[in-house]
């Protein structure tokens, strides 16, 4: 056990929080794939406590206070037990005989580790510089919870029914029992960090954003996105140091999530600010993260500013290119049915990313572009006497029928089954006017659209 705890003790002596946390990870480091196994084999259930206690307390170089030493003992003992469960599951998986509830056992064992950490942080036995351990605990708690839920869901169907004497049959739709539990633990850890009153240099406050991000991640997975607002609210109400002082990784993730939250609340201006910031801070090699940010930033800018992503940008992200470039092409061309098809083609992916409903609204821009084409194709008013080419103005009175014809181009295609009535064309034009994409009015008597002579399509040069 002395040898097995050496990495921990070294890291602790060097006061390197990240390394201390590394020694508490439930996965083996790359340079030492047998670490978990060695650690677990170094003791047995009977003696583990006394051995760890001895190793921490009476070794020459530990330098731990009594409280801290017994706190680590407790943590490490529960960690040792959790490792036992993890090795068991590894073995079972390798042999292809995984039992029901095994991941639950891992989750429970890991929760014990987490609880011990929470306990000793909150009563001050563990120093704040080791807060990274809490990150590790939280991260894996979430992972194990998801695994446990998957296994539980496989074992028994999704729905639980009421067994008490409530009014209604179904208890809840919950099938994420463990993850919900994990969310509660994460919330405890979050409060543990944000509520710390120690001087800021030795405060657990530095863990706040990491925990907040973990919570966001969990709430998104649980489809309980609304709960994220509470986290944001308590961060806004707290006296945390400025976000710039936190590690960049915390900043990027936090900005990303607050951006997405604003996006989902259809506050596109806010969303754009946060997401742009996340984009700016994101590490240049973190393509996965950049892609995630762009997944929301692109629809956001499309809807709020009518700006399409450049093909140069999309070229860096093949997946995004596949998703967005057909849409972008159709928007530019004003191809409505092409737009509809592109939207349907990737509907599942869009819905999964929660951007479908936003992208749907960019059809307005495609429509605007189509109408604009009609306007441009309409040519110019004949020159009056004394006017030169420089004075000529575009024809601004356009029959509804011309727009209707444009609508019908490409719509006649088989399968759409859509017959467009003239009233519907008028309705869509009215919509354009209402949304400020088109300046002018409709004259119903003459079946004419009378466009503004100066800038009928604001922001497009005509």
């Amino acid at each position: 056990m002395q040898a097995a705890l050496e990495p921990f003790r070294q890291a602790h002596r060097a006061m390197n929080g990240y390394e201390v946390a590394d020694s508490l990870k439930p996965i083996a480091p790359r340079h030492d794939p047998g670490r978990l196994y060695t650690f677990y084999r170094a003791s047995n259930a009977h003696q583990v406590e006394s051995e760890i206690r001895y190793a921490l307390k009476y070794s020459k170089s530990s330098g731990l206070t009594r409280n801290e030493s017994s706190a680590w003992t407790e943590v490490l003992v529960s960690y040792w037990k959790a490792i036992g469960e993890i090795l068991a599951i590894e073995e079972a998986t390798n042999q292809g005989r995984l039992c029901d509830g095994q991941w639950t056992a891992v989750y429970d064992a890991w929760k014990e580790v987490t609880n011990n950490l929470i306990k000793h942080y909150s009563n001050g036995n563990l120093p704040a510089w080791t807060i990274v351990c809490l990150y590790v605990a939280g991260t894996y708690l979430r992972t194990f919870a998801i695994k446990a839920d998957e296994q539980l869901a496989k074992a028994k169907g999704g729905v639980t029914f009421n067994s008490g004497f409530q009014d209604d049959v179904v208890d809840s739709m919950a099938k994420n029992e463990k993850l919900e539990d994990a969310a509660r633990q994460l919330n405890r850890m979050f409060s543990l960090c944000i509520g710390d009153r120690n001087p800021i240099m030795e405060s657990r406050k530095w863990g706040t954003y990491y925990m907040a991000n973990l919570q966001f991640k969990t709430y998104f997975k649980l489809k309980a996105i609304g709960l994220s607002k509470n986290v944001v609210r308590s961060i806004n109400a707290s006296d945390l140091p400025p976000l710039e002082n936190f590690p960049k990784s915390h900043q990027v993730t936090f900005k990303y999530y607050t951006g997405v939250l604003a996006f989902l609340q259809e506050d596109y201006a806010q969303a754009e600010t946060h997401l742009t910031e996340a984009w700016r801070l994101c590490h240049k090699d973190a393509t996965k993260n950049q892609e995630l940010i762009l997944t929301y930033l692109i629809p956001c800018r499309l809807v709020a500013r009518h700006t399409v992503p450049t093909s140069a940008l999309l070229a860096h992200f093949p997946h995004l290119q596949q998703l967005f470039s057909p849409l972008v092409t159709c928007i530019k061309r004003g191809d409505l049915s092409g737009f509809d098809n592109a939207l349907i083609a990737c509907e599942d992916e869009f819905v999964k990313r929660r951007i479908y409903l936003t992208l749907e609204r960019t059809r307005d821009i495609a429509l605007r572009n189509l109408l604009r084409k009609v306007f441009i194709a309409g040519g110019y008013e004949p020159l009056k006497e004394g006017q030169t080419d420089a004075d000529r103005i575009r024809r601004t009175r356009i029959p509804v029928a011309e727009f209707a014809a444009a609508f019908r181009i490409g719509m006649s295609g088989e399968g759409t089954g859509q017959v467009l009535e003239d009233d519907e064309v008028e309705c869509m034009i009215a919509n354009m006017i209402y949304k400020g994409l088109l300046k002018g009015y409709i004259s119903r008597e003459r079946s004419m659209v009378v466009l503004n002579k100066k800038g009928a399509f604001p922001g497009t040069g005509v």
Partner: protein
Amino acid sequence: MSIPTTIGWAHHSMPPHALAYNVVPARQSLARPMPPAAEQPVPAPKARKVQWSQPVRDYVQRAFAAENALEGIGQEEMQTKLKQVISYFAERDMLDTIDWERHPLPQHLIAEERQAAAMASTMNGYGWTNNAVPIHLSFPTGTTNTASSPPSSKKRKSMDDQLTEPAEEAIPPWRKANRNAFEDRITYSHGPNDKRHKKNDFNAGNGSSKFSQADLEKRKARFRTEMPGNQTTPPWASPRNDSDSENPTGPVIGTNQELLKNYLRLTAPPKPETVRPQHVLEKTLELLKKKWRYESNYNYICDQFKSLRQDLTVQHIKNAFTVSVYEIHARIALEKGDLGEYNQCQTQLRALYSQKLGGHPAEFLAYRILYYVYTCNQTDMNDLLAELTPADKSQQAVKHALDVRSALALGNYHRFFRLYLAAPYMGAYLMDMFIERERLAALANISRAYMTVQLRFITDELGFDSDADCFEFLRSHGAQYLVIHAEGEPARVNVKDAKNLFEQLRAAAFKTVDIKGQI
């Protein structure tokens, strides 16, 4: 042993040998002391050699168990009582006939006696404690009733409350003598259960003293044989052993035959007598459907449906019938625009459909889409879209609802109002919830895009039944001044003049969607 209890004993002429000594109390009542029952043999207890059976031993063990100790009742007191209880039954050779597992523990008996005594002393003011009968001993006394006044049936019920099996079916007639009013009052002081008993006590008539001794004996025997098989006797019959005998996970099996029942929120497991089994509930549903058709008293129907749902729940009935109950309730709630109640049904139905129990999943899926359109909840709508399968989308009602959604998302009010007029099933009821809002939105739209239009145009575009309806709508929103009736020409509306008004109305209409029990 407390003094009042002793007096009570003496007064009721309980077999003196139940005590270690003979009490000769001063006579305190006018009732004649009762002679010991003739048919009751009085064996000499000391001479008996008793083999304690396992149940009895368990009983003793439980009596001594620390977790069963009651505050304020000492060990000694309890032991005395325990001795009394056991020796009492032992002397009568009844140790084997008692259901020891259910028999109240001595400490509980003491507590009960004390309570009764306290009650009595407050009642009559001078400590007259007649009713402080040692309850466990009131079993087969067989004394004759000399003071023969007809007991009321109410008393029976109160006894049901307090007593456990051995005692409850044999209230000696003399206990009822002369003290009707007195005990009546006590009846209601024994906790919240008495109401239920009042309704359901089917034995109520039996306790009358006009029954002969033989009848009483026969009845006693009958109940005794029934006892072991009487497994469905629910725990609330004996409030004492709530904690260990209650098993809330097991379904109740209802026995109530009444078709109608008012809804009452349960705070404890229900009695089988109050719960209707499925075959009765099926008739209930038919009756309710009929009542709804002819009487249309929504509050009443809703209440009845809630109790129906409750009965299904406590009996763990989850089948096609359950689905149809929820579906019908949901439809009725929709019809009355009670979205709170509709919501509850909808949530339940979602889970029930996931169990593949039949019903009309497509219809209700369509309602759910329309509901989210109404609540403008983009997140929920997105989740719902993520759940949809191609099979769902091919359903006519679902397709309609999705079209409604996309028409509104694209601002295509023309199509939206066409869809409103063609809503399948009860979709139109749900769309009614947001039709006004969308009309205002469309008017805000039109008022910016047009200068002036015919009234008929608005009537057609916004799905009004007639020009009059349309005019009424404008009038109710303070926009009637826009309408111009010129001689020989169709009415026109100067929409342009009201673009700010409509915009304000639209914004206000979209501002709050507040529904009780929103999902």
